[in-house]
């Protein structure tokens, strides 16, 4: 009995200590997964995107290279961070998912607006009218960010303390 209350107490302090690690672990994971889906589904399987588009600018190439490297690092690194949170009994699933949606949504929005449109790295698909694709792409991204906002608001440390001392 004593052991389990100790356990709960340790778990609670861990939740507040590792709140930001839950958030950032989620952000990295979301970012990595969206980049990974982009790479495998749209580049490799559907062949909608192109490896290299003639209109690619130098800054576009740099941005693409950075995000490509970062996506591998983020996916693998955040998985290890997740394992570490479990090891410390500090995993808060809602905050982590909130982070994941925030990371994924932000990257998708960046990809859909700045990388595709402004830097012209490549388009979603090479057909006459890609407006519907662009709209769906960017609205999905915004939806993820909005969902993340509510999840993160609910799991804010302050509101968590509020629940704990109620």
């Amino acid at each position, binding site marked *: 009995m004593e052991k389990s209350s100790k356990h709960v107490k*340790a778990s609670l302090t861990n939740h507040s200590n590792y709140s930001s690690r839950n958030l950032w672990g989620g952000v990295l994971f979301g970012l990595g997964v969206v980049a990974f889906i982009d790479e495998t589904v749209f580049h490799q399987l559907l062949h909608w995107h192109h*490896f290299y588009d003639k209109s690619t600018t130098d800054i576009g190439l740099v941005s693409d290279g950075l995000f490509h490297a970062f996506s*591998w690092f983020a996916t*693998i*690194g955040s998985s290890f961070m997740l394992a570490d949170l479990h090891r*410390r009994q500090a995993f808060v699933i809602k905050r982590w998912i909130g982070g994941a949606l925030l990371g994924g949504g932000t990257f998708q929005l960046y990809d859909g607006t700045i990388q595709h449109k402004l830097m012209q790295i490549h388009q979603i698909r090479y057909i006459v009218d890609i407006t519907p694709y662009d709209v769906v792409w960017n609205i999905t991204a915004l939806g993820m960010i909005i969902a993340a906002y509510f999840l993160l608001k609910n799991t804010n440390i302050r509101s968590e303390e509020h629940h704990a001392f109620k």
Partner: protein
Amino acid sequence: MHSNNHLPEPILWLQLIAICMIAIGLYLIAMVISNRRFRKSWSIWKVFSFGIGVVFIFSASIGPFAIKAHSDFYAHMTNHLLMGMFAPILIAFASPVTLVLRVLNVKTARRVTEWMKSWPMLLLTHPLFAAFISIGGLWILYTTNLYALMQQNVLLHIFVHVHVFIASYLFTISIISFDYLPHQWSFRFRSIVLLLALAAHGILSKYLYAHPPEGVSKIDAEKGSMLMYYGGDASEILLILIFCTQWYKSTKPRVSPGTHSFV
């Protein structure tokens, strides 16, 4: 090597096998001496790792595959991948410095570790410096006329190969180290350098797709570029996995959960 162009193929194979066997033999002798002196015996996985690494290095630099790479950019890139990306990880895991230190007598070993703490060695094993000479070296090789020049000059050719391996090896051990290292930088710093180096490698790969090095045809450059990009990814994943495993082990909570800090 260039001067071997006229040698018949069986001789080239023999030469390759002989050199690999000598290198692996030396490693095995060192292992046997080390095992006699230390209670904890040397890992057999390190021996395998060293063996495969050595085969990668020499098959990419001498012998039949190396000669094919003179005329074929794709073959050149395959060799580059083996020598510059996979071999350094394999050799790093084999921990050659630790093995040498175990074999030497205490006095000499101490002198070696002191020498390794000198500033030139600290500079060479600094993650930023190593990233700069390895990835920067590749940018110079493929975006200037160096690639065309090295196909005509034997000495230059050897120098480039040796440089690719040594620079990549230094970079690898500065990021993930199984071996004795004079100074280990923080995980946070190393992760930033690793990220930037991987990005610079990816950017160069894609750049080559549209801007072939001098003397390379457009189709060859496209094939080579894709190999460099995706092959690079494979070794990068390996590097990141090892790096994260080392972080995970080092941050293991010891006292009680929640008292250990990040990095």
